C-alpha cells in the first residue's frame, strides 16, 4: 500500500506565546511524504507546542503554514484531519468500553438500514486490514479494555491510517513502552515511511532517533537550533545541539559500603499476583533497580509497599519498624515516599500552582496548629525550584502549563522536600530530556550518598544498568533473580525477565 499524494508541508516563522513564556519564536519546519523527522529538544523547548500547531490544536500567534503548495494561516483540528494530518497524543484516549473496531472508526461508524444500526461486521472487515498494516497482534472485535499501552498506541496509529493520514505526528510515543514494544513500534514507523507516509516523531530517547529518523530538527528555548541530515545523526551531536554543551559523565558508579537495610519486604503479596511472595531489601545508600517486563507486577509491588493498595499478606519494614498496611500517611511519616508512574493522575494537581503542588505533603511541617506559614511555604517552593531547575515563569502558575519534563521535576521536588529515608521511584525519568536525566541521576546518587535507600523501577535498560548498584528482576509478580553490578548486562536481565 502506498500513499497516493504524499504530503508536502512547510511551517515558517511560527510564534506562540503563553502568559509569561514564549513557547515558540520564529520556528520553521518542513516535512515530505516518505520521511521520518525526529523533533528533539530539552523539556520546555516547545516540541509539543509545535506539534499542536501542526495538528490544529493550538493556533499560532504568528507564522504561516504551507500545505501542498497552498498557504494557510492556521489549521483547525477538523481541517488538519481532513487534509491527512493525524496527531497521536501522548495521553492516549482509547475508549476502553468499546471494541477495537469501534475505537478505530469512532465518529465514522458504518451503519445499516434507515435507523442507522451499527454494522459491526462491516466495521470489523474495514478495520482488519489496517490492523495488519500496523502489525497489531489483536483483532478488530477484541475489547479495547485488555490492550496494553503499546497496543493502544498501535490502535491510535491504526485510527490515523483509517482516516488516510499522510502525516502522523507522534509525541513521545515510546515513553511508556518496554524495549521490545518500542522496537515493534519503530518497525511500524519505518514501514509506514516506506509506504510514503510522513512521520514526525518526538522522543527523549536519542537511540531511537538514531535508529529511525532520516532527519532531525532541534529546538532550543522555542527557537530552531539546527538540523541534522541522515549521516550526521549521532547522539553526542544531538545532545550538544539540544543543550548547547556536553552532558559529561552520565552515570557515575559509586563505591558504597554495605549498610543496614532501610526497606525490607518480607513475603509481600499483591492482589494482582496473590500467590507470589516477594522478599527484598534495600540498604541505606543503595540504588536497587527493579527491572522486568511491563505487567511483571513492579508497580503493583510498589503500591502495596507504599500503602496505596492493600497487601495480600507479608510485612514491610522501614528501618526495622513494620508499616501498618494501607496507610500512606504512615508510610510517609516513617520516611517512605513514592514517585508514581502516572504523574498526571497520581502525582499532580494540574490546576494548582507549582508551589502548592510542591509543598502539599510538607504542609504539616510548614504549619503551626494547622495554620499554614505562607512565608515558609514560599521558601520551600523556591528552594525546590532552584534545586531541581524547574522552568516556570512564576511559582504561582498552574502545573498544567509546564512542559512534561518540568512537571516530572515538580513531583520529584515534592518528595525530596520531605527528606525521605527510602524513595521508591517508578519510572523516574519518563519524559525527561537528556540534560535533566543526568541531573536526576546525579540527584539520586547524591541522595544515596547521603544514606537514602532508593528502589528504582525502570523499563529503560540503559538506565537500569547505568544507575543501579544491584538489580532485582521481576517476572509474574515474583523476584526472578537479583544481579549484582558485576553481572549486569542487558542479556542477563532479559533472561530473568522472560522467566
Amino acid at each position: 500500500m502506498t500513499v497516493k499524494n504524499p504530503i508536502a508541508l512547510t511551517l515558517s516563522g511560527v510564534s506562540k506565546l503563553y502568559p509569561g513564556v514564549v513557547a515558540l519564536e520564529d520556528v520553521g519546519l518542513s516535512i515530505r511524504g516518505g520521511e521520518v523527522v525526529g523533533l528533539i529538544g530539552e523539556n520546555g523547548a516547545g516540541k509539543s507546542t509545535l506539534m499542536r500547531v501542526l495538528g490544529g490544536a493550538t493556533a499560532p500567534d504568528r507564522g504561516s503554514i504551507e500545505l501542498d503548495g497552498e498557504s494557510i494561516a492556521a489549521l483547525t483540528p477538523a481541517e488538519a484531519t481532513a487534509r491527512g494530518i493525524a496527531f497521536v497524543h501522548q495521553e492516549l484516549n482509547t475508549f476502553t468500553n468499546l471494541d477495537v473496531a469501534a475505537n478505530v472508526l469512532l465518529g465514522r461508524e458504518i451503519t445499516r438500514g434507515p435507523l442507522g444500526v451499527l454494522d459491526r461486521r462491516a466495521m470489523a472487515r474495514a478495520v482488519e486490514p489496517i490492523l495488519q498494516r500496523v502489525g497489531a497482534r489483536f483483532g478488530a472485535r477484541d475489547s479495547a479494555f485488555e490492550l496494553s499501552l503499546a497496543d493502544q498506541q498501535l490502535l491510535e496509529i491504526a485510527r490515523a491510517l483509517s482516516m488516510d493520514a499522510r502525516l502522523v505526528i507522534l509525541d513521545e510515543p515510546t515513553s511508556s513502552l518496554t524495549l521490545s514494544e518500542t522496537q515493534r513500534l519503530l518497525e511500524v514507523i519505518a514501514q509506514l515511511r516506506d509506504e510514503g507516509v510522513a512521520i514526525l516523531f518526538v522522543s527523549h530517547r536519542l537511540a531511537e532517533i538514531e535508529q529511525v529518523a532520516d532527519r532531525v530538527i532541534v529546538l532550543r528555548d522555542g527557537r530552531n537550533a539546527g538540523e541534522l541530515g541522515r549521516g550526521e545523526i549521532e547522539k553526542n551531536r544531538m545532545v550538544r545541539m539540544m543543550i548547547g554543551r556536553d552532558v559529561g559523565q552520565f552515570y557515575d558508579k559509586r563505591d558504597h559500603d554495605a549498610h543496614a537495610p532501610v526497606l525490607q519486604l518480607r513475603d509481600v503479596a499483591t492482589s494482582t499476583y496473590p500467590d507470589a511472595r516477594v522478599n527484598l531489601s534495600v540498604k541505606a545508600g543503595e540504588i536497587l533497580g527493579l527491572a522486568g517486563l511491563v505487567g511483571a507486577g513492579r508497580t503493583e509491588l510498589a503500591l502495596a509497599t507504599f500503602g496505596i493498595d492493600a497487601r495480600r499478606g507479608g510485612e514491610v519494614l522501614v528501618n526495622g519498624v513494620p508499616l501498618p498496611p494501607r496507610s500512606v500517611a504512615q508510610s510517609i511519616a516513617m520516611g517512605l515516599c513514592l514517585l508514581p508512574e502516572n504523574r498526571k493522575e497520581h502525582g499532580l494537581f494540574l490546576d494548582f500552582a507549582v508551589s502548592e503542588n510542591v509543598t502539599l505533603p510538607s504542609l504539616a511541617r510548614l504549619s503551626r496548629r494547622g495554620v499554614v506559614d505562607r512565608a515558609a511555604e514560599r521558601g520551600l517552593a523556591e528552594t525546590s525550584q532552584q534545586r531541581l531547575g524547574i522552568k516556570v515563569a512564576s511559582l504561582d502558575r498552574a502545573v498544567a502549563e509546564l512542559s512534561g519534563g518540568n512537571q516530572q521535576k515538580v513531583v520529584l521536588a515534592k518528595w525530596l522536600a520531605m527528606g525521605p529515608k527510602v524513595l521508591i521511584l517508578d519510572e523516574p525519568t519518563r519524559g525527561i530530556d537528556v540534560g535533566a536525566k543526568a541531573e536526576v541521576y546525579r540527584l539520586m546518587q547524591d541522595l544515596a550518598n547521603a544514606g537514602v535507600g532508593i528502589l528504582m523501577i525502570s523499563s529503560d535498560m540503559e538506565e537500569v544498568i547505568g544507575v543501579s548498584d544491584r538489580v532485582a528482576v521481576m517476572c509474574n509478580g515474583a523476584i526472578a533473580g537479583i544481579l549484582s553490578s558485576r553481572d549486569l548486562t542487558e542479556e542477563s536481565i532479559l533472561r530473568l525477565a522472560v522467566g
Partner: protein
Amino acid sequence: MQKKDVGLLVLVLVVGAVVAAINPRFLSPINLANTANLIGLFGLFSVAEAFVIVTGGIELSVGSVIALLGVIFVDLIVNHDVPWPLATLIVICIGAVMGVIHGFLITRLKLQPFVVTLCGLLIYRGIARFYTADGTAGFSFGDSFPMLEWVVSGRTGGVPHSIMAFAVVAAVAWFTLHRTVFGRHLFAVGKNEEAARYAGIDSTRVIVLAYVICLVLTAVSAVFFAMYTRSIQPSSHGNFYELYGIAAAVLGGFSLRGGEGSIIGVVLGVVLLQELQNLVNLLGIPSSLNFAVMGSVILIGVIADTQIDRYRQRRRQALGLSMLNADGSGAGELGLTGGKQ
C-alpha cells in the same frame, strides 16, 4: 481577593446602585436591617454548602434538614421543657451525626453524593412532616424565652445578630479554607482525589469532615430560621434552600467539579441573591417572577465570567505579541523570556 471576587463585588455594587436609584427606600434603615438579617440567615447554610462543593460533592438535603431540625428544636423547648442552650446543642449534635452518615455512605459505600443527599432530602422532609403529624410546629414562646429571642433574632445597635453570626462564621470559614492545612486538603481532595491519596491525605476523613461541617452549620442556621419564622410548616419550611446555597456558591466561583472557589465569593453571592430578592420586592416586579429573575442573573453572571476570562487572555496575548514585535528587550521587561527562565 481573587479577580473573580472583584468582578462579583462590582456586580453587587452596580445592582445595589441601580435599585437604590430607582427606589430610594432600598437604603432606608429598616430595609437595610431586614436585608442584612436575611443575608445572615441565608449566608449560614450557603457557606455550609461551599464546604462540600469544594470536595466535589453536593448537599441537597439542606432545606429538609432545616425543617426537621427546626421542628425538633421547637418541640424540645415547647413540649419537653428543655433549656434552649441544651436544645441548640442537641440539634447541632443531630446535624453532626447526619454529616457522619452522609460522609460514611459516600466514602465507604462509594455512593454518589447527589444520590445520598437526594435521599436525605426526601427522608428528612418526610420525618419532619410525620413528627408534627403534618401540623404546624408553632410557638408563641418569643415572650417566654426572651433570652433566646434576643440572642438569635435580636439586634445590637440596629445590626441583626444573624448577620453578625454569619460574619463570624464566614471569617472562620475563610480562614479554614484558605489558610489552614485542612483547607488545602479539602481543595486537593476535590481537585484530584487519587493524587491526594498518593500524597498521604486521608481523603475519607477529609470528605466526612466536610459533610459534618456542612450539616453542623446547617443545624445552626435551622435554629436561626426557627426563631425567624416562629412557626414551622414542615411541608414547606426551607424548601429549595439547598438550591439557593448551591447558587450562591456557584456565583462565588465554586466549581461543581470541586477544588475551586473562595469564601469571599460565596459571601458576595449571598449578598447578590438577597439584593435581587429586594429588587423584585421594591421595584414592584410580580413576586411570582422571583425565581426567574434569580435564575437569569446567575446565568448572565456565569456567562459574563467566562467571557471576561477569554477577553483578558486575548488581550494579554495581543499585548505580549506587540512587545515582541517592537523589540526583544521590551518583552523582557514584561516578564516574557524564552522557554528558559
